[in-house]
């Protein structure tokens, strides 16, 4: 995209633009379906069959299976849709924040609290 052309990548950050949105379309569509309880149950009952129904790639299925958020992001997942997937495994935004930052939940929470105490958080 013109507006992003030639921009330095932002460290530790993926911008969800056209290319990523296309890459992750099926993955995000599957996650969008998890708004409905019956779809969450169908996924839980047979994860593989459910992923196949949405036409996920092999890499996406592997990342789903391992609940690996960074991998899911790099395969086009959008965090808002992914949250519906990880929510099924009892992981909230702070759990997956810690997972992505590569630290424990306690460290992640402490880091946020520390940001609240500094003047340049």
């Amino acid at each position, binding site marked *: *995209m013109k507006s992003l052309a030639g921009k330095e990548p932002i*460290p530790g950050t993926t911008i969800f633009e056209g290319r990523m949105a296309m890459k992750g*379309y099926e993955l995000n569509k599957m996650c969008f379906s998890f708004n409905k309880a019956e779809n969450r149950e169908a996924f839980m009952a047979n994860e593989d069959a459910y992923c196949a129904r949405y036409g996920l790639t092999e890499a996406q299925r592997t990342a789903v299976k391992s609940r690996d958020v960074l991998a899911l*992001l790099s395969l086009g997942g959008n965090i808002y849709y992914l*949250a519906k997937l990880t929510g099924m495994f009892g992981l909230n935004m702070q759990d*997956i924040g*810690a997972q992505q930052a590569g630290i424990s939940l306690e460290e992640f*929470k402490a880091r946020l609290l520390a940001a609240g105490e500094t003047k340049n958080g």
Partner: protein
Amino acid sequence: MARLIGGVGSSHVPAIGNALEQGLQSDPYWKPFFDGYKPVWNWMEDKKPDVAILVYNDHGLNFFLDTMPTFAIGAASEYQNADEGWGLKPLDPFQGDPEFSWHLIDSLVHDEFDITMCQEMLVDHGFTVPMSLMWPNQKARDQVKVIPLCVNVVQYPFPTARRCLKLGEAIGKAVASFDKDLDVVILGTGGLSHQLDGERAGHTNRAFDTEFLEKLKSEPEWLLKYSNYELAEIVGPQGVEMIMWLIMRGALGNDIQELSRNYHIPISNTAAGVILFENDAI
């Protein structure tokens, strides 16, 4: 004629919904956050607005990537909340004001805003959390009619900050031309700095947020010097939601007072802000 009596900028993270559900307002984690809302509660109780225009974004409940509008406005007599998949209990439906919605849409399209019109739309936590934050009491909440204005801050390209400010200005004009004796508030929600995705998850930026809040009353154009990409770097990809506050700010014009402000880190993974403006022109 309808009167835009004031505006509020506010966070809308789901964790706030949980805290309200569980009555954690006095909990040490939550107290510094909720205390910031007391002036807003008092003001709302005093002013009793008839209608709230609520600027927010959908996070994957009503809109999917097949059809992603830049600006969508509700024109329904009722808006349902629903299961978002990860456990926030759906709230009671919200009462719309379709006649006002159509007036707003008509005025905005005439002023060259390319609105997506929604006669049926589910509202997610981006909408419901500010509603229960402004009016924690169900009965008070039921007395406010709502007009949801949903902004794309999910999939690039987002509307520019400049476009958001201009949309606000056009909303101000539209409200002033609605031929009903109504007191209206506008809520700009989302932000402030936060990052949910990537290795940098948990990023916040107190310095920038503070400057943003400081300048919002008298120099809202200050934010326009940053592109959405630059903002993503500075306040995190989800922190860019703060451009929705500019829609609220733009609607109010320049004859306003700032009545209160609060800022607190952390609420969940975010820096949370709240600001209350009253329109002196009214």
